[in-house]
């Protein structure tokens, strides 16, 4: 795979230099020029902490049989109340997650409203460039096509992620992604029936691992005042998740990635995280507290 744009640039620069002629007493001299392009490039960060996107969690809880609950959505009427840049970024994340939630559950009327809300909120955040015309047209044309709508909401989320990464706005991305993640945990925790929804309870317990990655990501931007305030909240949640125990495999085996007899690779062994009902309630309470800190309107 050739990088055509790099090749084109080299050719453009080298074309005037390729041939040079000079006259010296009637003897033409043909000189060939060979150039080497050396670029100074800004070295890229080489460790990435990936934060799960909201659509993955909502796709999971839907297939797990959890019902949609519109009352959990953050009120879009409050979107104009967030004037502080930190709260705008955080609530942009909350609404983006709500958009993914409504799309996953085919709540098309709500999806339209939440898509319009994040589009409107993108402007003061300088993110409106990520919403190009074709994306908006696709969304409008596919409002009643569930698979396409989920794909479009994913595309819009990752358009924002790409834009912020490419424009070195990692701290703003951290705020948006962490609030988006929190909203998925909030919706899940407030929908689960602990006694009945075992798979969803286990997935909620596994968010301890997602939070680890999230904190590693946010700590890179700890020197930014907005991020450091949010870090305090999430470290409070980390302390609650820390009470959850890692249960070792009954064979006491370490984690392995091996081919089994049927030829399939299996990541097996190791430990799993378990959560009692009391711990579940503690996680839910803490998540609700942080979420309220984010969505409360400024007086």
């Amino acid at each position: 795979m050739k990088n055509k744009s790099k090749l084109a640039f080299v050719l453009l620069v080298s074309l005037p230099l390729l041939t040079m002629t000079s006259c010296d007493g009637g003897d033409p001299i043909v000189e060939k020029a060979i150039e080497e392009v050396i670029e100074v490039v800004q070295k890229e960060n080489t460790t990435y902490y990936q934060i799960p996107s909201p659509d993955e969690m909502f796709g999971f809880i839907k297939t797990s049989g959890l019902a949609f609950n519109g009352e959990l959505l953050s009120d879009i009427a409050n979107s104009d109340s967030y004037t502080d840049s930190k709260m705008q970024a955080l609530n942009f994340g909350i609404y983006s997650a709500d958009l993914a939630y409504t799309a996953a559950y085919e709540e098309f009327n709500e999806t339209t409203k939440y898509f319009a809300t994040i589009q409107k909120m993108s402007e003061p955040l300088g993110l409106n460039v990520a919403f190009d015309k074709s994306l908006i047209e696709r969304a409008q044309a596919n409002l009643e096509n569930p698979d396409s709508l989920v794909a479009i909401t994913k595309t819009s989320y990752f358009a924002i992620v790409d834009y912020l990464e490419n424009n070195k706005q990692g701290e703003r991305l951290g705020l948006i992604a962490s609030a988006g993640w929190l909203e998925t945990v909030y919706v899940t925790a407030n929908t689960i029936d602990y006694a009945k929804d075992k798979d969803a309870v286990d997935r909620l317990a596994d968010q301890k691992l997602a939070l680890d990655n999230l904190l590693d990501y946010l700590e890179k931007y700890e020197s930014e005042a907005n991020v450091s305030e949010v870090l305090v909240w999430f470290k409070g949640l980390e302390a609650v998740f820390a009470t959850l125990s890692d249960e070792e495999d009954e064979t006491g085996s370490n984690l392995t990635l091996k081919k089994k007899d049927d030829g399939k690779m299996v990541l097996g062994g190791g430990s799993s995280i378990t959560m009692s009902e009391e711990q579940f309630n503690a996680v839910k309470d803490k998540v609700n507290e942080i979420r309220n800190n984010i969505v409360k309107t400024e007086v």
Partner: protein
Amino acid sequence: MKYINKIVLVVVILIVPVMSFSQYCNHFHEKYCSSSENQRFQVNGQSKSALLNKGQTSNLNILVYKKMDYRISLCIEDNLGTEISFKIYEIKKVKVEKEIEHKDMEDEMGSCSECNGTGDLDGESCWDCDGAGEKPTGNEKEVITKETQVIVEKQKQLLYDNSQDDYAKVIEFTVEKSQKLVVEIKIPGEENKSNFIKSNDIGCVGLLVEHMTTPKTGF
């Protein structure tokens, strides 16, 4: 007529001070990495594309959930080579005991017994200690104390190395228990630590992560 051929080496230095070329690599993984033919696999949001140079190592921290199947495929631009190292590690938080050394400055104490029990000997003066005991001499000395603390360290444990698998660029696996993994990619060659890199030594690398619910088998 006489033709004189001259080869002129022209070095063109392009300064790209602030902007990086990483945007060239946007969606590289979606366009060039091989995706699964199994329609049940979906693109996972943890997929990533990046601009890397020869000799560079990059780590992608991801989360894989239990009862899910994952497929990770690697794609790179041709100029970066063919035998790309692709490893998967587990990150374990391990409690380890570490000896911590503390260095403090403390007052140097003189013994009162040097004055026949009545005080300290400091030059020709005899300090009154109000009985037996010690008194500061006015000097300071370094005191080293050692303390054993239990700290949490992150340790990497190798789970998969594609060099043992014919430099495979695709791996597919089922997850029994949710885990954090680190996917490490190393581009062959010597790492260039300077900021001057030849354009042929950099290129796009993509990691396409796909997931699906592990199919239930049997009746």
